[in-house]
Each structure stands twice: as structure tokens, then as C-alpha cells.
């Protein structure tokens, strides 16, 4: 039995501890927001927060995620500045990679409320979008920073 804490809820799951966290979230907990893109931690589509930090759930065995606080895109509040910025700036195209990208951005902004361009590029170089939404991802980040500043959170 594996015990997981996901989006503030506790789960007990009958699954082998070497199964990647991604597939436990998707197929056992039916939280399909985190996506499968590469399986080797190269693309970031599977990004979730583990204890507040962006991690690639496709390469983390579920056993190693026990006792930690896991947040998926579904658990990021609806009024989170990144979610609102993504809608306002119409960042999304196909949208498959975007949950992972938004989780990457949310983690970046929780570390630094106003990251400089180098920091942004450094973090966003770790994720892949095939549709080419990159210019809008940049706009979305700027918008989220503005929203956070305006609301002082």
C-alpha cells in the first residue's frame, strides 16, 4: 500500500512502489492534468509540485513521493495568478504541455516574485512546447508577476 498526499487529500493506493508517480496520479487517482510527454524528465509535461518545488513526476517512483506534499494542476487554485494570466494572455494552443508549464512557472514565481529574464529563460528552457506558445508564455509570466504585485500576494 502506498500513501500519498495529493492536493491536500490523503490516498491509499495498492500499487507497486516503482511505478512512476505520473501514472499513479493519472490512472489510479484519475488526476489527468499532469501529462505524459517523454517519460525521461526532458519535456516537463508531467510537472507537479512536490513540497512546493516543480518536479518531473514521470521519473519519480511513487514510493519516493510518500510522506510529501504533492500538488497537481488541479490543486493549483483557480484564481492563482498563473492560471488567470494564462487565460488573459490566451497563452494556450493545443494545451497538452501547458499544465506542466504552468506548474513550472508557479514554482518559479514562488521562489522569486519578479524573476529576471535570465532566470525565466533558465527555468523555461527545461520544458517543451511543440505548438510554439513561447512568446505568449513570456507574456503570461509578465502578466502573472503584475497580478501578484497588484494584489500583494
Amino acid at each position, binding site marked *: 500500500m502506498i500513501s500519498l498526499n495529493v492536493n491536500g487529500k490523503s490516498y491509499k493506493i495498492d*500499487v*507497486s512502489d516503482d*511505478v*512512476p508517480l505520473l*501514472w499513479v496520479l*493519472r*490512472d489510479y487517482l*484519475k*488526476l*489527468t*492534468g*499532469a*501529462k*505524459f*510527454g*517523454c*517519460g*525521461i524528465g*526532458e*519535456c516537463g*509535461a508531467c510537472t507537479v509540485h512536490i513540497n512546493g518545488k516543480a518536479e518531473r513526476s514521470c521519473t519519480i517512483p511513487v514510493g519516493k513521493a510518500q510522506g510529501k506534499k504533492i500538488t*497537481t*494542476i*488541479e490543486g*493549483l487554485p*483557480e484564481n492563482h495568478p498563473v*492560471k488567470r494570466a*494564462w*487565460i488573459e494572455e*490566451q497563452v*494556450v*494552443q*493545443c*494545451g*497538452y*504541455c*501547458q*499544465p506542466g508549464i*504552468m506548474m513550472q512557472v508557479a514554482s518559479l514565481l514562488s521562489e522569486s516574485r519578479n524573476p529576471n529574464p535570465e532566470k*525565466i*529563460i533558465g527555468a*523555461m*528552457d527545461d*520544458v*517543451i*512546447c*511543440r*505548438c*510554439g*506558445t*513561447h*512568446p*505568449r*508564455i*513570456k507574456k503570461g509570466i509578465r502578466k502573472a508577476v503584475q497580478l501578484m504585485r497588484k494584489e500583494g500576494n
Partner: protein
Amino acid sequence: MNPTISRRSFLKITGLTIGVSLTPFGYNVMNSSAQKEGAFKPNAWFEITPDNLVTVTVPGSEMGQGIRTALPMMVADELEADWKKVRILQAPAADPFKNPLMGAQVTVASAATRGFYEPLRKAGAAGRVMLVKAAAQTWKVPEEECTAFNGTVKHKKSNRSLTYGKLCQKAATLELPKDPPLKQESEFRYMGKSMPRVDIPEKVAGKAVFGLDVNVPDMLYAVLARPPAYGAKPLSFDQNAAEKIKGVRKVAPSPNGIAVCAESLDAAWKGREALQVKWDRGSHPDMNNDFVEKNLIESLDKPGAVATNVGDVKKALGEAAKKLEATYYVPAVAHTTMEPMNCTAHVQNDRCDVWVPTQAQTGTQMVASQLSGLPPAKVHVHTTLLGCGLGRRGSQGRDYVIDAVAASKAVGKPVKVVWSREEDIKNGFLRAAYGQRISAGLDTQGQVTAWSHKVACTSISKFANPAAIKNGIDIYCLWGIYDLPTNPQLSHTVYEFPNFYVEQVLSDLPIPVCPWRSVTNAQNAFVVESFMDELAHAAGKDPLEFRMHLLGNRMRVRRVLQTVAEKAGWGKPVPKGKGRGIAQHSCFGGFLAYVADVSVNEKDGTIKVDRIVAAVDIGPVVNPNPVLAQVEGGIIEGVSTTLKEQVEFANGGVKSANFDDYKILRMSEIPEIEIHLVKSNEKIGGIGEPGVPPTAPAIANAVFNATGARIRRLPLTPEIVLAAIRSK
């Protein structure tokens, strides 16, 4: 707007339903309200119900281009509907949902918006006329005194109004107007304004359902062991070992390999591992990168089939004051849609359900029908959202449907087949590699007198539409070089030469190819527009002026070139180490021209694309913001394939495996992008694909401008750039 994939909603006949159906001569708009439940045919385009909702059925696939928004916008605008009351339904696979331009239910060829532009507007306008008439009859006033506005009909004189919900049932009994008037552009309420895409909120919430997110009760998972080399057959495998893995239900041979069906994906993967399949070496065991390139370049010396022969090229080349010849090579690239291929199917005695992210409902239904043995009408295709399409999920993309239907048939349960990224790259269809050679002649004035073009590639029609290959010519491989003037789908060969010859050699390489965002326009545009640059320099002319001279009265092309030149500062000096290049390409009714600015590091051969300025004419623009997004995406994919992408081959198969060795563009490599939509009242064009083709030649021409080195091979990797600089 909650799309549903259930068919049940079609069965309620409660309001005004306007349908459009495809005929051999075009399309018909009809009043479908009165059809009885049992006899109902799902030809509804939209339905207005007493709850004031307008439900629009979207026939095509949403892959980020925004058709779940753009198509309903056309209906809502002409209908004078309240946008807040518009809902959408995803259409099932059925004849009435065929795209009038394509004759099939497909979302390809950048044809969704342009294909439905007129029919949907007409349908909306017909609805508006009927609702106005229903109101006039209710109030016993002349129709001319009534106006439709934002979901209600008003009678100003008596200050009365009725909502569409109240009027729809009466309107449903009226005859369809013969030729309902369309709005003037000045009257548009939604079209031409950037409307937020209806699919974005659920995608941002993480709740959107892509193919891989489908969950059917009692579903099993399947993965396939697939051949590592083209044509390879299994010599042996350990079925027992696989079936001993906990959770594995069945090992079943499948048309595309050996399927392992299991209770979880993890068990399926472990079962596949345990199979320990030994494969033979396949049909071309020695095939590697050099083998592919050599095959295509050497094919240029073999006799081919003649696609067109105007004038006397040989004579004109002999008489030319200057003759230029160049050979180009474009390698194969992979689609790598972020959502790997997948499909869920449930084959039962009397029906087959397929849940699939597909661009091709008709093709999906056909192949599932063949494999399940059920008639097409019993195959229910549920189109999910697509984690990108790029052509991989088009008509050729039936492999994953075959996988799922075969697996479900084998185990008698619903089965979801999941491809890993490695399978996606190694076992997928690719963008075709090309070898091309052009000889051209210039007269003493620097005019092009002859253009002789030879093309070697594998056939793109071979898998889905072999009948398209005629007398050794696969016209779909020649887009942008030569088009049959009779085919409305194709691009526009824009330059006219007095002597013009195109020859094609279809290679027997075993690499399966299919359209890759712009079909074959991108490969061909790279060659044509690079060589055009070579000719301009040989003629001692400015590349823009040189093109303008050849364009005659092709006004739309001239205008985008002129616009992009002005906006990008064409003709102004660029700093040392930097270069500026121009290129144009038109396809799918979109006319585009780009100027690229690059920085080249001549020491290490690296290129940075600093900026791309684009001018775009697609005629009327329904939803501008997603149009800009399509061009941005086209440019970025264009830069990615120009600088980085190349599928590696080894041992008769694909060596590239995942994003660690098949690299695509990342954030730090993204150029500044500036897009200018050219206002135009010309025919509406497509924009899903045309953004890609002008990118590569604009960049390569800019590299020439910066370094004096002409690079005739993609991708422009540091090694290739350094070699070209050294050999200039």
C-alpha cells in the same frame, strides 16, 4: 462551453435546427427541425432551444488552432446570437460533417475555417431570417419592421421583443429562405474581433480531455512491441514470461507488432519487457543517415517522371548568358506532438467505439470498420482534444487506431493503447526527406529564362491514397514547386518562367512519410526560395526586387513582400556578424512573406535567429488572435526544423528516440516575432500550416547575407554552418 461526445443530444427535436450537408456540387442549407427522432440524421450545424441556448456542432478537430471558437463565431454572428448563450458539441463521424473543401471529415490542409466559412455563415443567416419572420407573424407586423439583435427580435414601433428561445419552435415550422443575405463586414458583431478561445479555460484548469485522458469503465491498457527496423519481423518472443507478469491479461499479435494487454500501463510495459522479442534485421539493414542521403541525391541522376514541361528548357539553358545549378538536401523530421499517439477502442458484437485524438474522422471510421468487421455506421468515433496534430493525426495516421481496435478485439474489452515517446519517434510517419536539384538560366539582363527542377523523395500518398500517384508523379510531394492548376487544395506556384520543367523520382526507401504542418510545402519552399536568392545574387540584383520582377500581377504575393520589406527595414544596412534574408511562400490560400535577422558566430558556427518579421494575407480574418498564434507557432516550428531537427537512422530503422537526442527549439532560442496582418477582402485562406514554409529559406538567406556562405542542407547545425563557411 462544455463539449460532449455523446450522441444523445442530437436526438432532442425541441427547437430550430439548421443543417448543412455536402452535395456533389457544394453544400445545402436545410431546416432539419422537423426530423423525427427515429429517422434523425445528425446533420445539425446548430440548434436553438427554448432555453435560449444555441448549440453549434463543430465538425472538425480542435488541436489548438481554435476552431471550436472560430466556427461557432461565424454562426453566431450571422444568426445575431448572444455569444454567452452559445454552446458547442463535438460532431461524431458522419457524412454531413465532411469538410466541403476536402470531401471528407478531416481537419487538414488548413481547411477548417475557410472550408466552412460560407456554409456556416449562410446557415446562421437563414436562422436569423426565420426567427425574424416568426416574430413578425407572432406580432402580425411586417417583417421589415423587426430586427434581430443579440439573441432577441425587436419591434421598435411597439417596443416589443422576443427571445430566440421563445421564437425557435415557431421558426422551426417555417420554410428555409432561399438566399438569406449575409452581413456586411461593418455589421459583424464577432467576426474580425479577437474572441477568447472557448477551449482555453478547461485546458488551464487541467480538466481538458485529450485522447490519453480517456477513461472507459472496465478498460485495459495495451502497449506494443514494435519492430526496431523497417520491415523487421519477430523471430521469437517469450509469451509465457510476459503473461506471468502480475496484471498482464493477454499477449496478442497485432498488425503493427505484438500487443501486451494488461490491467495497468505499468504491467503492460513490464510485460513487454519480459517478451524479449528477437527481430530479424528488416528490409534495409544497412540503412543509416548516409544511406538515406545518398539514395536521394543519387536518385537525382536517375530518370524520373515528368510533371510539367513548358517551352524548351534544354535549349533555353544552352542559350543562357549565365547558368546556375545547385543540389539541396532536406532530412526527415518527426512530428513529436506533445501528446504521443494513442487510441482507446471498444469492439462489441454490434458496435465499435473509438475514442481518439484524430484529425481524420472519416479515415478512423473506415479503418475501424474494416478491422472490426462492422459497417461504418456502427463505428462511433469520439473525437477528443488533440495534444497537437501537425498532420501526424491526419489521414495516414491510422496506425494507433489499428492498434486499439485490434487489441480490443483480441481481449473483448475496451483497451487504451499508449505509445511511448520512443515509439512515437521510431515507429511513426515522418516528414519526407528530399534531394532536389535545380538548373536555371539567366539572360544578359538578369532575367530567368529557364527553370529545370528535379525532385527525389518517398511518396507521401503511398500509404493513405495510393491512387493519387499517377504515371510516377505524386503531386502531393511537389507542392510549392508545381501544382496541378485544377486542384483547389494545392498551393500556388507563383513564379512563371518561359521555360519550366519539373521531374520527379519516387525513391524506394522504406521510411513511411506523411504531411508535417504544410504537407511538403516547407521542404520545397526552402529549396525554391533559397535558390531564388542564389539567382538574385548571380544576377546582381536585390533579392526583393528580383522576386518582384518575376511576380507580374500576383498582387497578394507582391503586397506581403512589400509590407514585410517596409516593416523589417529591408535595404537598410545590418551590423557585421548579422544578416538579413527574405522569402515568401503561399499555400492553402495563405500568402506570407518573412524577413529573418540572424547573428552568426563564424568561429563556432552557431546561429541565433534574432527576429522574424512576417506579413500575412489570408483574406477575411475570423478570429485574429488565434490567427497570430498560428503564425507564431508556424515560425517557431519553422525555426526548430531549420536549426535543429533531423531524424537519425541506423541499422535499418530510426535511431533517434526521445527529446534528449531529438532536439527541438526551446525558450532561449526563440526569436522576436513581429506579425503584420495585411487587410484584404480577397478569398478566405487557411493559416494552420502556411506559417512554416517561408521560415527556413528566410533564415538560410540571412545566413548567406551574414557570411557569404550558401547552405543547401537542413538543419543549419554548427557543423554544417562551419563547413559551408570554410568551403566558400
